[in-house]
């Protein structure tokens, strides 16, 4: 079934990369874009999203902050943190928030694997 | 002759003769070369390793920085160095005697069999590290003898003011372990106000040590207590970097002694001043007693004598009063004294009785001369008033100073002296007082010829007129220290 994915990254190119992979692997899914945490939260206020892909390295608030905010309002939504900086501390915090971690630069396989897992999780939760 | 065969053989021989470890991996991280040096250092043979994945042969390396560096070399052509300083033990290498072999690794891309690959070069730095340690210890031992036993704090910073090193005395004086202080700013040890005395940046680079005198400043211990320190600075170079070393001597004790001394002197000043005050009081008391005595005497001439005595005592009291007023006790501003004396005598006699004109240049008189000269002035002026023949008496008092000494002149327009008057032979008390005191001063009494009236002049020469150097500080302290 068709899902809506929210992409949050201050780099336009990074968003393009994700969109490009999505169009190859999940062409029927809808995409929402935000260039920062504030914009992302605004969007989520207005519209529903099923899955969130959040860049870690953003000005003002990092991806983990945004993930925590989203998680607070939605305990089930699959969230992935995207970053090249796969340090233990960040991985651990992501795990605490029940968020996945996908390393940058993004490969099709890695992102596709996460999206499959996310779709499965949503189905099981009856969404 | 097949030259390519010889070349391969020769290269192989070179690799095995090198005093460096060489490992060559192909694009899949399989071992292609593992030279003799590596065999000796690891105990693993090339024959056993050839063709195997390095990470499988040495599993402890599977998740190491080495693996990342090899990957970077093969995939992206990046060269890396892995140094002993940042990695305790990269490869499991041993020296022949069993000690660990300390090493650096250099990884370079190298095409192998037409595809990507890399070369790992292993450098034995055990000797260098050990030698450096030995050299450092030897050098340090020389200085340690001086530096560790020094009582003074010795501290080194770089040009930015970041602490690099401090000796045991410094640890003790400032109450910091050197490990805690190193890396922090020198301001940790100096008071905020005096931090600027430690040179930084440009000042540190251009320090002129000949011109630099030790400077006293306030430092601070760990708990903030201030320390009085004397700082001597030097700068030096090492490997293109400039460092600043300072010796900080605790002068708290010296300062304390100096402060105590200054306090003692100040106390003495107050004391001497008080003494003048009390002497004046005592003399006034005596004078007062005489006045009382006077009141109970009927005899007019006896009364007059007592009055004279009382006035003379008052004149001396006035000297001490002036000394007390001026906070001095080695010299007296005689001009000011004369002014007061004249105005007091004029007032006492009444304005109709005398008309006193005073001309006095500034004159500081040694305290031993002040009282005698004061009494002389008192006598001469009182005399002039007493022996006037007009109302008011016209009296001129002048005090002149010159390079030769000074002269006090009292002249009046009275009846004048009898023609055969000889001051030295005079029997009057007043005259005897004046001649005796003049002699005591080492001066000369002259009677100057005038048209009408009398002029007395007392001259004191410079060799008799011993005025100490004009200062506002108390007399020298003779305790062996450098006198002020």
């Amino acid at each position, binding site marked *: 079934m068709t899902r809506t994915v929210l992409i949050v990254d*201050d*780099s*336009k*190119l*990074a968003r*393009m*990369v994700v*969109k*490009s992979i999505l*169009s190859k692997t999940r062409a029927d899914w809808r995409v929402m874009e935000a260039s920062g945490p504030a914009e992302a939260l605004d969007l989520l206020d207005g519209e529903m999203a099923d899955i969130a892909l959040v860049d*870690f*390295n*953003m*000005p003002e608030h990092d991806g983990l902050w945004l993930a925590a905010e989203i998680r607070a309002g939605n305990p089930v939504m699959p969230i992935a943190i995207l970053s*090249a*900086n*796969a*340090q*233990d*501390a960040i991985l651990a915090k992501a795990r605490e928030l029940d968020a996945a971690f996908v390393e*940058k*630069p993004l490969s099709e396989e890695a992102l596709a694997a996460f999206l499959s897992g996310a779709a499965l999780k949503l189905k099981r939760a009856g969404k | 002759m097949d030259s390519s065969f010889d070349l391969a053989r020769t290269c192989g021989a070179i690799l095995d003769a090198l005093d460096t470890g060489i490992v060559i991996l192909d694009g899949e991280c399989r071992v292609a070369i593992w030279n003799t040096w590596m065999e000796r250092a690891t105990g693993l043979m090339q024959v056993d390793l050839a063709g195997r994945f390095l990470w499988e042969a040495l599993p402890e390396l599977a998740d190491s*920085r080495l693996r*990342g*560096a090899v990957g*970077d070399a093969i*995939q*992206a*052509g*990046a*060269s*890396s*160095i*892995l*140094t*002993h*300083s*940042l*990695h*305790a033990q990269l490869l499991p290498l041993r020296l022949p005697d069993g000690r660990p072999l300390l090493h*650096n690794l*250099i990884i*370079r*891309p190298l095409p192998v069999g037409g595809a990507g690959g890399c070369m790992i070069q292993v450098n034995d730095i055990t000797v260098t590290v050990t030698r*450096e*340690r030995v050299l*450092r210890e030897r050098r*340090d031992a020389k200085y340690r003898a001086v530096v560790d036993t020094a009582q003074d704090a010795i501290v080194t910073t*770089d*040009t*930015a003011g*970041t602490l*690099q*090193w401090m000796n045991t005395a410094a640890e003790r004086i400032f109450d910091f372990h*050197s490990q805690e202080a*190193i*890396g922090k700013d020198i301001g940790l040890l100096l008071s905020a106000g005096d931090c600027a005395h430690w040179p930084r*940046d440009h000042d540190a680079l251009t320090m002129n040590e000949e011109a630099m005198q030790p400077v006293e400043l306030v430092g601070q211990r760990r708990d903030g207590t201030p320390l009085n320190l004397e700082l001597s600075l030097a700068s030096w170079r090492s*490997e293109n*970097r400039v460092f600043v070393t300072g010796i900080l001597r605790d002068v708290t004790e010296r300062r304390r002694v100096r402060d105590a001394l200054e306090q003692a002197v100040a106390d003495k000043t107050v004391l001497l001043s008080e003494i003048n005050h009390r002497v004046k009081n005592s003399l006034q008391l005596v004078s007062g007693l005489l006045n009382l005595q006077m009141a109970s005497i009927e005899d007019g001439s006896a009364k007059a004598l007592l009055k004279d005595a009382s006035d003379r005592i008052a004149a001396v009291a006035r000297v001490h009063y002036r000394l007390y007023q001026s906070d001095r006790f080695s010299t007296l501003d005689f001009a000011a004294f004369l002014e007061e004396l004249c105005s007091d005598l004029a007032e006492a006699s009444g304005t109709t009785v005398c008309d006193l004109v005073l001309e006095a240049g500034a004159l500081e008189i040694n305290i031993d001369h002040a009282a005698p000269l004061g009494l002389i002035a008192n006598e001469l002026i009182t005399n002039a008033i007493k022996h006037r023949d007009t109302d008011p008496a016209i009296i001129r008092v002048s005090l002149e100073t010159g390079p030769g000494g000074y002269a006090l002149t009292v002249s009046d327009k009275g009846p004048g002296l009898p023609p055969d008057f000889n001051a030295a032979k005079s029997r009057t008390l007043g005259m005897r007082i004046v001649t005796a005191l003049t002699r005591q001063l080492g001066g000369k009494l002259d009677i100057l010829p005038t048209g009408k009236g009398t002029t007395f002049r007392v001259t004191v020469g410079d060799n008799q007129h011993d005025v100490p150097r004009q200062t506002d500080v108390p007399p020298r302290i003779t305790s062996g220290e450098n006198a002020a």
Partner: protein
Amino acid sequence: MNDGIDAEDEGGERLLTELERDALTEVINIGVSRAAKNLSRMVKDQVHLSVPRTEIMTRDRAVEWLSRRENSSLVAVGQDFQGSFSGQALLIFPEKTSLELVRSILDDTLPLEEIVDLEQEALAEIGNVVLNGCLVVMANMLKESLNMSLPRVMRGSSQVVLLGADEEDPGEMVLFLTIDFAVRARSINGYIALLMDLPSITAIKTLIREYVRGFEES
């Protein structure tokens, strides 16, 4: 982090489109993050590297720009790279922070005298990790192979560090990245400078354009 590149050469012409600038920044960020990951494994503690600013300017202006920000002596680790784009990569720190950086990375149990002895070597390796992080990611993402030299350590003013011993054409371009290093609760500022000649900049431009196009078309 996308603070934008001021990408105008002296003629006022835009060197890169906005999207291309974005792409370059993203590539650099990924490279720098990867370097942070590597450093954090060495340090066994968190390391954060972020790139708040990116600028392109001529070498002359770069010397001026750097002198204005850092008026004390500098330490730099440099590596040459060669391939379809060539140049020099520099990791630059004010000298006073370099010892601090090394101390924060070195094993705390080492005696201080040894740390000072090892400072030069350790700096070279730290520089190597950071610069390789950037360059390797750039090479991989742009599908290029570069040949990179070993690091060397230099000290001096911004003039010495950026212009070096030989007076090459000071008109060469410099890609200047201001980086913030946060290691073991210490925050250290430094810079990464990529010095390239115009042909190399053009080559990178082409590579980036192709990279971007790869995503635009899908």
